[in-house]
């Protein structure tokens, strides 16, 4: 018989309690994996938007934590284009609207000029691309089109006006798929920001040799006071929504994990207390305190490992489920980063140790002769 077999049999003996503990741990891990996974996925997806388009720097009004509040003059784009080492500068407006009747509360509206390269990254599923100079026309991402039940030729109300859908597209990015695109100048008028953009993306010219992004960043910031040029990773890390999503997910997860750990602690205390006579027998036949500790820790770790497996699978399933719900499909990506699952396992094992430390310590304090007298 392996020591592990002995541990497994101890758990199997109180299978209902073991199962309930595993469920408790699994719920905590599922909450942590899905919430943190969504937050991390949110950040990665955001990053992919910029990286996928080869963006090196994001320029916006300094001190603004998100593009929506930023406002810069369009002419700054020309100044940046004139800098050595700059390949491309794209200015645009990002705004947010909601479609309450469809339960869609956070839909991105992108204002792009008709000639920007960004359109090349979109795969047209039906209709056509926006043309320069036209008014009252929009393109819809495929997820948004499906959620709204709109297609080419349908009318959509935005900013109190009717817009005709001229194209439905698919992007490599989940947020673009849940967004709507208008021409930049029309969105500037609608949002009362004439000749303004919420930010620029800058692509460095890598063909001309080594790129000194830090130098380029300094040159851009010197063009006008009160602007910041941030590398994409740094920009993403400072986006308010991402910071809030990350903080919220961890706070919620921590509460769930603490509750899970208390469940493990409760189970292990009861288990050790009920078996103190058996522990006395084990000590009488020569088991050292550290082997009893290994037994208690082993049982706790096996329980939480089971919880981690079930919880991780549930977390992935929950995330997939929400990625298909209309309300969240434009925000939640259907996959969980493997790092998050690894973190879930590490946390579960941490819970196992935390829940077993006191019962294990208590078991070592039991004197064999007293434990043997226990009923």
């Amino acid at each position, binding site marked *: *018989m392996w020591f592990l077999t*002995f541990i497994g049999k101890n758990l199997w*003996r109180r299978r209902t309690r073991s199962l309930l503990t595993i469920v408790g741990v699994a719920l905590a891990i599922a909450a942590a994996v899905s919430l943190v996974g969504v937050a991390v996925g949110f950040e990665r997806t955001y990053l992919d938007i910029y990286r996928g388009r080869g963006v090196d720097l994001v320029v916006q009004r300094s001190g603004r934590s998100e593009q929506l509040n930023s406002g810069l003059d369009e002419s700054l784009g020309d100044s940046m284009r004139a800098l050595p080492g700059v390949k491309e500068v794209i200015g645009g407006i990002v705004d947010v609207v909601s479609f309450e009747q469809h339960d869609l509360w956070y839909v991105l509206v992108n204002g792009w000029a008709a000639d920007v390269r960004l359109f090349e990254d979109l795969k047209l599923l039906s209709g056509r691309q926006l043309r320069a100079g036209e008014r009252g026309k929009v393109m819809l991402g495929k997820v948004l089109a499906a959620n709204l039940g709109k297609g080419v030729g349908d009318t959509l109300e935005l900013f109190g006006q009717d817009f005709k859908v001229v194209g439905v597209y698919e992007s490599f990015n989940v947020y673009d798929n849940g967004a709507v695109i208008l021409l930049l100048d029309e969105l500037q008028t609608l949002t009362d920001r004439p000749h303004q953009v919420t930010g620029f993306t800058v692509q460095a010219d890598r063909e001309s040799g080594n790129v000194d992004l830090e130098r380029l960043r300094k040159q851009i910031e010197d063009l006008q006071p009160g602007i910041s040029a941030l590398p994409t990773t740094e920009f993403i890390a400072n986006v308010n929504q991402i910071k809030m999503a990350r903080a919220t997910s961890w706070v919620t997860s921590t509460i769930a994990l603490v509750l899970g750990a208390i469940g493990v602690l409760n189970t292990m205390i009861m288990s050790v207390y009920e078996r103190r006579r058996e522990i006395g027998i084990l000590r*009488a*036949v*020569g088991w*050292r*305190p550290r082997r009893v500790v290994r037994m208690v820790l082993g049982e706790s770790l096996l329980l939480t490992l089971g919880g981690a497996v079930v919880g991780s699978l549930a977390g992935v399933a929950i995330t997939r489920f929400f990625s298909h719900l209309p309300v969240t499909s434009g925000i939640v990506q259907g996959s969980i980063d493997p790092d998050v699952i690894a973190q879930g396992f590490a946390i579960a094992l941490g819970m196992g140790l935390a829940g077993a430390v006191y019962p294990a310590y208590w078991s070592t304090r039991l*004197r064999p002769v007293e434990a*043997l007298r226990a009923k």
Partner: protein
Amino acid sequence: MSSADGNSAAHEVLLRADHISRVYPDGAVTALVDVSLEIRRGEYLAIMGPSGSGKSTLLNLLGALDTPTSGEVFFDGQSLARHPDLDRFRSEKLGFVFQSFNLLPTLTAVENVQIPMFEGRLSAAERARKAVKLLESVDLARRAGHLPGQLSVGERQRVAIARALANDPALLLADEPTGNLDSHSGEDVLALFDRLHRDQGMTLVVITHSREVADRAGRIVWIRDGRISTADAATSQSKGNVPCGS
């Protein structure tokens, strides 16, 4: 008299209690008072006395499950009070048999027998092989895969004896080993003890309140009110030549 008594090692003192007393922490109960006792290698000793006389307390002290308030216990001449690892000592040198068997209910007979071996160096396969052999020695190999709940009380006690022998102990300590058994099962257990003593020279200390059980031993020590009873010690001489003191 057992054949073991005729061995060259028969006169070596294996275990010696030297003026041991046990007072429980609140000071209200003095369970054992100034008890001295020698147990020779290969001896079969019965400790008799009424309930509450201190028999089990004495067994716990002899088995290093408890420590005396005063006095010392010596095993092979070494003081247990100064022993660096009493867990290892119990594991390697002692085997315990309890009145209520104390088998682990979720483990089969063969798994229960392996429990003391975890502190040794045997592999899982070696542990299993040895456990089967031990069960054969108590005539229970055919019941190796049964849980304690599927065994008769007599069979459970024989499994417990096999477990006590797992690490080839020098001394077997049994606390009322037939107390929960019917007369037939009790006879089986006592016959097993006889065989261990006779064939393997095993040193046995059996706590009992049954004269019938005690009569199987080579020597009987009486204990009353926490003291070795001198009056009864005289009686014990009739069963053997090893003196007991107090």
